[in-house]
């Protein structure tokens, strides 16, 4: 009976069977991706399929913007040119100071017999688009494994830290912004060198400094810069400005909100730099001799 069916009726397994199979497959994929992190290779291969579409979606708008730039009025360009010249002067003044400090630092390191610091590699990356996923604050940028981008590199703009690279595909990579939920940056208040941590609270939300006592010496307008204690963000990069400090009765902690200094929503180029140099391993405490003796390095 079954074998005599005309070809028209042969449609393979029923939709419900297929749904079961593919749902099971989806769940397996979800668990192995989210919990076990097994699928990075597969993801990288699939991005190569998606990249032409990503390029096609962004290229026409880019070229239209370039055309409108081309047609922009002369006065605008003159004003911008003047402003950029001023900024360049200020930047070069800072750079001269930085160079002097660098030379001094190198000399001190030599005196101290310390290892030379790694050369900083800088790569200009272009934002392709905001990550579409509304649950996270991510950016997709146009450089990937082909341009030697590595996971863990830091992404900055001309004002401050924007985030870190967490996933590298052959042609693109993903940046996790500092405003992503529960993203932590160890920072230092520039005014009084107080060390603390800035938490992200989600896309387009302010950053928050948590678990500081109500009497803490942080004021509105304070600049927070990276302290470098995590081994991910190199020290001294500006991160955020404090906008609001709330001290509530009955709460042991002050609520401190800040805004990121980097304006990653407003322009399309960012700089990827190397993360902090590798740090010495965390010292094993003397109070846990049993563990220390078990681990042999």
């Amino acid at each position, binding site marked *: 009976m079954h074998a005599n069916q005309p070809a028209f009726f042969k449609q393979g397994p029923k939709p419900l069977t*297929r749904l079961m199979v593919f749902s099971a497959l989806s769940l397996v994929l*979800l668990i192995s991706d989210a919990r076990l992190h097994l699928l990075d290779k597969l993801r990288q291969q699939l991005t190569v399929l998606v990249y032409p579409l990503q390029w096609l979606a962004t290229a026409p708008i880019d070229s239209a913007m370039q055309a409108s730039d081309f047609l922009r009025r002369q006065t605008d360009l003159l004003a911008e040119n003047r402003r950029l010249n001023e900024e360049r002067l200020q930047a070069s003044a800072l750079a001269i100071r930085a160079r002097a400090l660098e030379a001094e630092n190198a000399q001190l390191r030599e005196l101290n017999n310390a290892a030379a610091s790694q050369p900083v590699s800088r790569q200009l990356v272009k934002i392709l688009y905001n990550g*579409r996923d509304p649950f996270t604050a991510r950016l997709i940028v146009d450089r990937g494994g082909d341009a030697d981008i590595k996971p863990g590199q830091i992404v900055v703009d001309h004002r401050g830290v924007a985030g870190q690279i967490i996933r590298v595909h052959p042609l693109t990579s993903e940046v996790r912004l500092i405003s992503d939920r529960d993203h932590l940056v160890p920072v230092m208040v520039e005014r009084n060198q107080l060390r603390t941590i800035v938490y992200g609270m989600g896309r387009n939300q302010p950053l928050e400094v948590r678990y500081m006592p109500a009497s803490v010496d942080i004021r509105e307008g304070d600049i927070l810069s990276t302290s470098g204690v995590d081994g991910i963000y190199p020290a001294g990069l500006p991160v955020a400005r404090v906008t609001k400090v709330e001290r509530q009765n009955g709460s042991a902690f002050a609520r401190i909100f800040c805004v990121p200094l980097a304006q990653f929503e407003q322009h399309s180029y960012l700089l990827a730099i190397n993360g902090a140099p590798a740090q010495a391993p965390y010292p094993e405490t003397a109070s846990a001799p049993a563990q220390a003796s078990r681990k042999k390095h």
Partner: protein
Amino acid sequence: MPISSQLLRPVSFGFILFTFVLAFLGNLLPWQAALQGLTPDFVALMIVYWALHQPRRIGVGWAFALGLMMDVADGSYLGQHALAYGVIAYLVLARQRQFAIFPFWQQALITLVLLVLSQALMLATRMLLGDAFPGAGYFAGAPIAAVLWTPLSNLMLMHQRKPVSDEL
């Protein structure tokens, strides 16, 4: 006008692929920064459309594959879109004969329910995996997609309504 009462030209597979590519481009356009969730999920919309019109060609398997592509493009967990798209494709297929004879405005209502369901599935997945609720604006794309259903269906059927030459 219900689709079943018209005589339509067959659809080439190239056309189906072309519309999916366009839907992907619609989803990947860099307008998310400005509109935050107000953009409809075009890929889900096309899956509903083609599962309704070409149930023998576009089914759960295609929805799964397109969902995987969307997961990669979005940087979300692999399987999140694939699961949601597979479920809505199945729901369309299960009642396809019924839905296909409905007028467009009723189909638009069904599409609204299906798209909200797909987003609710994704939301449930993400919340089970420990993410926070992104706000009610997350669902704003589905009503917009439902409003788009009638013009979109007319536009797509225009391609199939072209008069056949009299050589036959």
